[in-house]
Structure formats: structure tokens, C-alpha cells
């Protein structure tokens, strides 16, 4: 049986370090893909039934829940609408729902896990250890769950046509005027990975990039052993809007870099069109570790790229330490600036209005504008961190990782 050792029928698990299937019982090793297609086909007809149909449960939490019978122990495995592999609650073995990866829905490729759970945890702890404003309780966090999940991705090639007008400030003498710059052209995008799961936000999944897609290998169910996985549930429309969003951003960034003749440049108007090459779409499963921990009663989900070990999360910050250090530095800098300006101001401004003060007033106006810009930039950066923390504490990512059996 697939998932079982041929020597002793022990449970097989894919070992990211060895890139082999290891028997938990006898230690035997097998190459993934050793099992014949016919063996898998026997399991394609195993049906998955809706939990509400079987038990007549109409509560909202049972709507997207299904029952699959574990091939190892016969226990009922509860899965959601897109899960392909999970762990049986009773025997702990990996249950692969083969009927969900028949020929029609089968991913073409898979990027096997390179990082083990311990390595992923180690990467998170190491990164947390370097964070100046990460509270000690989080640095020594105790994980609630560590789950290796294959996320369904569509690898997309597309052709993007764009027409963008950039406005910017150009100085002529002492005056500044606004000028407009038009750019139109074509951009080809190759190998763009787009997450195919509606349960996981695009913002979370795009942060996991880059994946080295040269390591993609033909899909085989054996790679799922020991891991959770989902199939894609997005439509072509979802895919197109996700590809368009990324392509628009890339195009705008490249155009802004192409305008050298002005300062303070920004997009004035834009038109875009992205055409996906649907004939060469690749459907692949890419690996990620989801590590959850609880801090002050709130669930936090850290995601780690299962191939490169890139850690993605926003971490709650030590506000007391932050404001203490910022105030101390602020007072120190205020003292320094006071020494400078107490001597400099009488040279810039004549409060008796006997001399012309136009240049001095202009300098003061620049300082005032600079101060406002400093505060705006600082506040924007804090807000960025807070939005990352919100993403890490988001219920949808917690549910994606947490609402699984085993």
C-alpha cells in the first residue's frame, strides 16, 4: 500500500534532508516515485463524503468539512474542501486523498521540502534572537503547532502591455514646475508563482518568495507523506487578477526608474493589460512550514519557506523599550540641534526686521517641511510593521494552518 514500507508495512515519511522516504519502523529508505501508477489508481475511487450529509449537521463550521476513511486504521479523517493530505488523528499516519488528485486535478510539479521541522524552528528562533524589539517571551516562544504544508501554486508566464504617465518636479532657476513623461511598452513575465489557495491571502504567500523553481520535480504522491497539502481552488479569473496586480506593480516600478529627468516623481495615469499564456501554465505544490504560537492570548502564525528557510512574519514589539529608547535618543538629538540652532538662528533671521529675512524664512520653511516628512516617514514605517503583525495574527492564515486534523 502507498505510504507503507514494503519491508515491514511501517509508516513512510518523506525526509527533507535525505530527499527519500524513510520507514518510521525499520529505517528502510525508498526513492519517491517508486510506487507504480496502477497502485495509486486503485485509490482514485475512494470517495470523500460531506460531514453534514453523513451526520446531518447543518452548523456553518461543518459546511466545508468532509469525511475520509483512513487507509491505515479505518478511522474517520475530517478534511476541508481542498485538503489532499493530512494526518489521521487515530493512527498518526499520513492520509492522502487520492480521489482529489486524479488525472484531471493532479499537480504537474512539486518542490519537495528541503527543510525539516526542526530546521524551520531553528531558523525562526535564530531570526527572533536578532530582533532588538522582540519581547523575551516571544524569543523563547513555545510553539503550539508546526505543520509542513504544500501550498498549491500556479506558475504563470504572461505578456504585459502598459501605458503610464509619470509626473515629476523639474527645477528651472529658483522655480519648480511639474512635467509629464509618457512611457508605453511590453513586458514579458516568466515563472511567476501565484498561490492557488483562496484560504491563504496573496499577501502572505507572495512574501514566501523567492522559490528556486529549477528544483521543481514531477509530482508524485510520495512527497506528501508526512505533510499536509491542498489542491487549488482558484478560478482563471482569480489567477488573472492576481497576475495583473503583480504585473501592474512591476511595470510601474520599472517606468518610475526610467524617468531620470525629474524629482518627486509619481504615477499620474496608467493603463495596463496582462495576457496570461494559459497553454504553458504550470500547476505545482510548493513547500512552507507554518509555526503557530500564542502571545498574550493571540494566535501568531509564522511561515517559513520550506525550500530556502526564509522566515515571514510580523512580530509583536516591545513598546516600552521602543518608546524609552526613542525618547532618550530624541532628547539627546534635541540637545544637539538646540546647540546648533541657538547659534545659527540669529544669522538666518533678523527679528528686528532691519535686514532682509527672505532666505532665512525659506530655510525655516524647509526645516519645517523636513520635520513633517521625518514624522510621516517614521509613522508610515510603524504602520507597516503593525500591518505585518496583523497579517501574522490574521484568522485566515491561522485557520489555513490550524484547521487540520492530527
Amino acid at each position, binding site marked *: 500500500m502507498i505510504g507503507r514500507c514494503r519491508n515491514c508495512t511501517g509508516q513512510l515519511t518523506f525526509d527533507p534532508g535525505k530527499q527519500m522516504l524513510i520507514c518510521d519502523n525499520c529505517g528502510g529508505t525508498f526513492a519517491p516515485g517508486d510506487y507504480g501508477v496502477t497502485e495509486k489508481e486503485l485509490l482514485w475511487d475512494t470517495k470523500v463524503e460531506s460531514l453534514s450529509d453523513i451526520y446531518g449537521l447543518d452548523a456553518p463550521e461543518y459546511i466545508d468539512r468532509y469525511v475520509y476513511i483512513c487507509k491505515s486504521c479505518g478511522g474517520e479523517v475530517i478534511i476541508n474542501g481542498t485538503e489532499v493530505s493530512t494526518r489521521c488523528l487515530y493512527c498518526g499516519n499520513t492520509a492522502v486523498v487520492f480521489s482529489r488528485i486524479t488525472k484531471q486535478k493532479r499537480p504537474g510539479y512539486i518542490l519537495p521540502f528541503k527543510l525539516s521541522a526542526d530546521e524551520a524552528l531553528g531558523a525562526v528562533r535564530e531570526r527572533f534572537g*536578532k*530582533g*532588538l*524589539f*522582540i519581547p523575551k517571551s516571544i524569543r523563547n516562544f513555545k510553539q503550539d503547532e508546526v505543520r509542513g504544508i504544500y501550498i498549491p501554486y500556479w506558475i504563470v508566464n504572461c505578456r504585459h502591455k502598459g*501605458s503610464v*504617465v509619470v509626473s515629476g518636479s523639474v527645477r528651472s532657476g529658483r522655480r519648480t514646475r511639474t*512635467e*509629464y*513623461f*509618457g*512611457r*508605453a*511598452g*511590453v*513586458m514579458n*513575465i516568466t*515563472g511567476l*508563482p501565484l498561490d492557488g489557495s483562496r484560504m491563504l491571502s496573496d499577501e502572505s504567500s*507572495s*512574501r*514566501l*518568495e*523567492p522559490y528556486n523553481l529549477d528544483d521543481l520535480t514531477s509530482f508524485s504522491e510520495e512527497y506528501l507523506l508526512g505533510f499536509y497539502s491542498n489542491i487549488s481552488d482558484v*478560478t*482563471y*479569473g482569480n489567477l*488573472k487578477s492576481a497576475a495583473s496586480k503583480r504585473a501592474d506593480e*512591476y*511595470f510601474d516600478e*520599472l517606468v518610475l526608474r526610467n524617468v531620470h529627468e525629474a524629482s518627486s516623481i509619481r504615477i499620474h*495615469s496608467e493603463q495596463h*493589460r496582462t*495576457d496570461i499564456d494559459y497553454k504553458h501554465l504550470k500547476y505545482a505544490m510548493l513547500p512552507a512550514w507554518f509555526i503557530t504560537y500564542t502571545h498574550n492570548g493571540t494566535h501568531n502564525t509564522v511561515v517559513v519557506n520550506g525550500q530556502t528557510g526564509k*522566515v*515571514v*512574519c510580523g*512580530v*509583536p514589539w516591545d513598546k516600552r523599550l*521602543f518608546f524609552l529608547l*526613542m525618547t532618550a*535618543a*530624541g532628547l*539627546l*538629538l534635541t540637545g544637539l*540641534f*538646540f546647540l*546648533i*540652532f*541657538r547659534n545659527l*538662528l540669529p544669522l538666518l533671521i533678523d*527679528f528686528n526686521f532691519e535686514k532682509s529675512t527672505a532666505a532665512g524664512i525659506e530655510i525655516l520653511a524647509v*526645516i519645517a517641511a523636513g*520635520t513633517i516628512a*521625518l*514624522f510621516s516617514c517614521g509613522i508610515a*514605517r*510603524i504602520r*507597516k510593521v503593525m500591518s*505585518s503583525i496583523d497579517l501574522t495574527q490574521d484568522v485566515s492564515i491561522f485557520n489555513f494552518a490550524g484547521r487540520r486534523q492530527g
Partner: protein
Amino acid sequence: MDILALIISLGLGFGVSLLIFSSLLIRSNDIGNAAGSKSQYTFGIDYEIRRNNLSRGEADSFGSGYISGEENLPTGV
């Protein structure tokens, strides 16, 4: 004069401090915030039209007709 110097110094001092510490906060607590870089997926834009010093009117009508047509999505999901 001293009061004006103090007001300016307070603004600049705390402004610079906020900028420095918010940058440190991003480094410390916003981990892996960068999405995939465009250089991994594209070699850049082949510009077909490149115009500088457009008037406001020209800017508003720039590129009209350059993007056209609707793409037909494949059927099914």
C-alpha cells in the same frame, strides 16, 4: 530666539529619532516582508513609446488606443 531654536530642535530631534527607531523596528520585527523581486521574473520593459515634456493635455490622452482588446479566459475552472 531661544524658544524658536528649542521648537525646531524638538521637532528635528524627535523626528530623526522616530525615523531611526522605526527603521530599526522594521528590521527587528517585520521579518521577510519583501515579496518576490521583479528581476526574478522579468528582464524589463521593451519601450515602444517614450516621450518627455508632455503637456497636461497630451499627458491625459497619452497611450489611448495602445492598450486595447479583451482577453478571452479559457472555460472551466
